[in-house]
């Protein structure tokens, strides 16, 4: 996973003549199963001796948002479960929370 992030970043860094990648701006949804600390740990190991060495991993977490298809209520994921807190329906749609992409990199 972390290797994939590094490869994409270096690819775009090279295409844009970067001498260094300063920061990676990653977007991860709440329903995506990734642990920020694990990515950081592996990142420090594998980015050594590349143009991405020392780059900051800036991870933006997108909350899981649902839309109730019965009462139209929009709500965030709660520890109580997925059902609509307004009417209790399970007939709901996931609006956000599945994201997992590299949005941009800051280079010099």
């Amino acid at each position: 996973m972390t290797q994939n992030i590094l490869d994409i970043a270096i690819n775009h860094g090279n295409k844009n003549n970067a001498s260094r990648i300063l920061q990676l701006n990653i977007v991860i949804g709440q329903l995506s199963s990734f642990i920020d600390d694990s990515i950081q740990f592996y990142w420090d190991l594998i980015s050594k001796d590349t143009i991405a060495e020392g780059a900051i991993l800036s991870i933006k977490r997108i909350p899981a948002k649902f839309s109730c298809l019965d009462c139209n209520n929009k709500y965030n994921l709660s520890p109580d479960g997925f059902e609509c807190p307004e009417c209790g329906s399970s007939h709901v749609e996931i609006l956000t929370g599945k994201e997992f992409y590299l949005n941009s990199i800051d280079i010099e």
Partner: protein
Amino acid sequence: MTKRVVPIVQKIMSANDQIAAEIHKQLNKYRVFSMNFMASPGAGKTSLIELTVKELTDNLKLSVIDGDIATSIDADRAAAAGAHAIQVNTGGECHLDAVMLRSALEQIDLGATDLLIVENVGNLICPASFQLGTHINVLISSTPEGDDKPYKYPQMYQNIDALVINKIDLLPHVDFDLDYFLKGVEILNPGLTNFQLSCRTKEGVESWIQWVIGSLTSFTGEI
């Protein structure tokens, strides 16, 4: 030097997904119907593969690719049941990815295979993110694992095409609220096909077998 921001907006799994798409094309080219079995360790992936192979081996040519960190225990079981089985030892990786599968497929005669079953490494997290290019992703849940799994591992439950709930013979002995479990599944994956069975007592297995046959028949009809 001035700082510049380079927009990328690229999915992190895009490299793996691209190889998975190539695998998918290759399987279609050879008319091989394929399934990726995922589950926690011990849920019953291998047992279900054994049963499926035994039922179908008289009429179909089955290949099984088994992913594990160590041993060939599972591939040996699939071979004993009648499949051409090969083991992939993942070198410590906790999941199969498209690169590993592409390599493993070199050991399979796709021209002589009707159904390919890939048994993934026992894990509810990482396999959900690594598409393999198979036609169907199947999750095998089991009643002793507990009914909160959809809530704790949402990505897995979203990314599957069929769900098998195994060990229903143990329901009287474990705390498993089937309604609560299925409600979570329905929200994450509305209308998901599910099978409730026991590999041990064989209850419910026939429906699963019929579905596999039906899916394969539809596939060869469309391709």
